[in-house]
């Protein structure tokens, strides 16, 4: 197979507008002292900010108007998530957006009507896909659902379910009669002890182990508008695109944070940014960031294109994770002794890059998938 490696990039007026608004909003609502104050907060985010961003219509961006949305696409969500990432903003925006896309892709019109208008208005949701096997292949699952009259009875455990506690409902992947299925699990159907908070490397996240044993839901909660395998593949790419955007934004502010220090800290009587041992890797981080940003906006632009969308998205995720990991690693090192402390923000970025990289396949895994797609 011969392929074109050109890719393409474009930028809509709506993207430009959202980029500007989101940048201002996130800077104002999520300064770093706020981020730090939320690290110890049980919910990990400010509900007032959540209400505001729901009012701004951000949850509705990529939902069609007939289901209460604005009717734009994920390309317009990308600048918003990028700016949230830039400000290390916590909260269930990414999870909720992915849950909405899961229902849009896999649900029936009735399911979309039942869930999406509320979601657009600010009801958080999340997806529960990962299991203890650690497999990035989402179709490999051991959780099951079995029929019991008009109900489904679930069993098994999901792990690393981001924002499960704030979500009003979860999209849960299970094996049903030997095939993959996605089931809407309303919060109230979960047992009292179903959620167990996990300690995760990125302290701005809220992540849970979800025990499904004994959960009963109505059989009409199965997403039945498309095959679950297709919807899972879609979810994987949507999440990858948004994580790439988030990491790209994080890389930008990590570089800013480091450069500020290089311009103010003196050693041996000179600003440390004048030393090439620090200056040159800072430039390498900048170049990696610019490459990541180009990949991210190219992926946003071509996300829905058959074939090319997946290639662009996997490239974006691989590059964004690589760029943020490098920038944050150097950020810690270049802050010297202070970099080793909890008070230095460099660790926030480094921890976040690990989270993003580990979700839905790290950079090496993305390259492996890309090789299979391209060669």
């Amino acid at each position, binding site marked *: 197979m*011969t*392929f074109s*490696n*050109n*890719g*393409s*990039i474009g*930028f809509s007026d709506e*993207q*430009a507008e959202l*980029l*500007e608004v989101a940048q201002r909003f996130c800077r104002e609502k999520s300064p770093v002292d706020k981020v730090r104050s939320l690290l110890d907060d049980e919910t990990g985010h400010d509900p007032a900010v959540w209400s505001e961003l729901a009012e701004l219509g951000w949850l509705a961006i990529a939902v069609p108007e007939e289901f209460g949305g604005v009717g734009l696409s994920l390309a317009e969500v990308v600048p918003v998530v990028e700016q949230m990432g830039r400000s290390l903003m916590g909260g269930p925006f990414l999870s909720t957006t992915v849950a909405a896309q899961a229902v849009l892709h896999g649900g029936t019109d009735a399911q979309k009507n039942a869930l999406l208008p509320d979601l657009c208005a600010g009801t958080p949701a999340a997806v529960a896909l990962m299991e203890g096997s650690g497999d990035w292949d989402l179709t490999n699952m051991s959780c099951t659902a079995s029929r019991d009259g008009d109900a489904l009875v679930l069993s098994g455990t999901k792990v690393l379910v981001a924002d499960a506690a704030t979500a009003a409902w979860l999209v849960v992947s299970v094996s049903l009669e030997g095939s993959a299925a996605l089931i809407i699990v309303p919060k109230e159907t979960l047992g009292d002890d179903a959620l167990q908070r996990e300690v995760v490397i990125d302290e701005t996240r809220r992540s849970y182990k979800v025990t499904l044993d004994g959960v009963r839901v109505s059989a009409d909660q199965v997403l039945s508008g498309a095959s679950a395998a297709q919807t899972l593949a879609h979810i994987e790419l949507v999440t990858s695109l948004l994580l790439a955007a988030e990491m790209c934004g994080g890389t*930008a502010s990590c*570089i800013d944070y480091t*450069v500020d220090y*290089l*311009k103010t800290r003196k050693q041996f009587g*000179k*600003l440390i*940014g*004048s*030393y*090439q041992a620090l*200056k*040159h890797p*800072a*430039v*390498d981080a*900048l*170049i990696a960031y*610019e*490459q*990541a*940003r*180009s*990949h991210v*906006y*190219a992926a946003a632009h071509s996300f829905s294109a058959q074939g090319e969308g997946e290639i662009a998205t996997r*490239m974006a995720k*691989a*590059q964004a994770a690589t760029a943020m990991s490098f920038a944050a690693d150097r950020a810690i090192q270049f802050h010297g002794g202070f970099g080793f402390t909890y008070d230095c923000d460099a660790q926030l970025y480094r921890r976040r890059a690990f989270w993003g990289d580990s979700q839905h396949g790290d950079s*090496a895994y993305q*390259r*492996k998938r*890309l*090789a299979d797609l*391209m*060669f």
Partner: protein
Amino acid sequence: MSNPTQQELDEYRTEARAWFTENTPKDPGFMLPLTFMEVGTQQQFDFLREWQNKVWAAGYLGANWPEQYGGRGLPEVFQNLATKEMSRAGGPIMINAIGLSWAGPLLLDMGTGEERARYIKNILSAEDIWCQGFSEPENGSDLGNAQTKAVRDGDEWVINGSKIWTTQGNFAKYMILLARTNPDAPTKYKGLSFFLAPMDAPGIETTPIRKLTGEYGFTQTFFTDARIPGDCLMGEEGEGWKVAMRTLEYERGARGGQPGGYVMTYPDITQVVELAKTANYNGKPAIEDPLIRDELVALLMESRSMRLSSARTGIAPLNQERPLSIPLSSKLASTEFMKHMAEFATRLQGTRAAYYVGDVDAHEHGIWQRGYLNSFSATIGGGTSEIQHNIVGEHVLGLPKS
């Protein structure tokens, strides 16, 4: 002409395609240089000079330059189309690289009317080949410390000293020359002036330099009481550094205004993909090896990102905070990438990576092996990658000077 219609563009493209299909030379029977820095023989030189002249005469080089100076006065989009067609037909490089890409745009930008009238047309036609006299044996990266002297004597300047890495120095008619006119200036930069020096002046001699590939392409240029006319000074005396810095912006591709064509043919990463499919790596096609696949994808991503970034510079909202970031880092990123790609393409040949140009068993005549060695010309020339790091660090990130 402003805002050409799609129909006009389509017609132009059709004409250009037909012309290049008809006129692009076939294999001349000897190895053609892939870049302007590899012109090692008179045979190569004559061939390429004739080719450039022919392209220009047909209107496909400098179409975007003013008519009064030998161009066609068309919007740049036409020339870009012509250049694409030249590339599509696999046309050889334009030989007069320093004239076309650096000296020409510089003269259009900062030269006087008289200078433009005198030099530009013959740059396009390849009648006058240009070379560059910036680096010296003792002053490479520290260009501002150049010590070649120029002393005014009546109507002439008397030049003494030596310049090095003079690409096509043995073929050139003119040199853009940075020389010290005032050794006592308050700073080393203010003592420099910029000249458009005729290479046939008495007292100028060139000696070929043999490159690491074993081939030729550069000279060292010696000035021994060389006398050049007084009007060779470009700009004001003492402003040479400013003019030289502008020249380097053209050289590094950070500033547009070139007359089209290309002075290097870059191997494309897709050629490496094809190579990986056929090359035998430890008993199997290289493309089946997991580590080779991983590295190849990384290179594809990097190659694509540079194209995307170049397109992104046209999207203002995505360049607001550091508008110079992509333009100023592209030389560093692209030259290091080309080197890595050639190195990888050599390595994935397995045992055959050991062959070199001249051996019958060398893959594609050893083009990647030689390409790797030659790629250093770009990571060193025009400001080394280390200097580029300083430039980006200081001018884009705002870090203090090293």
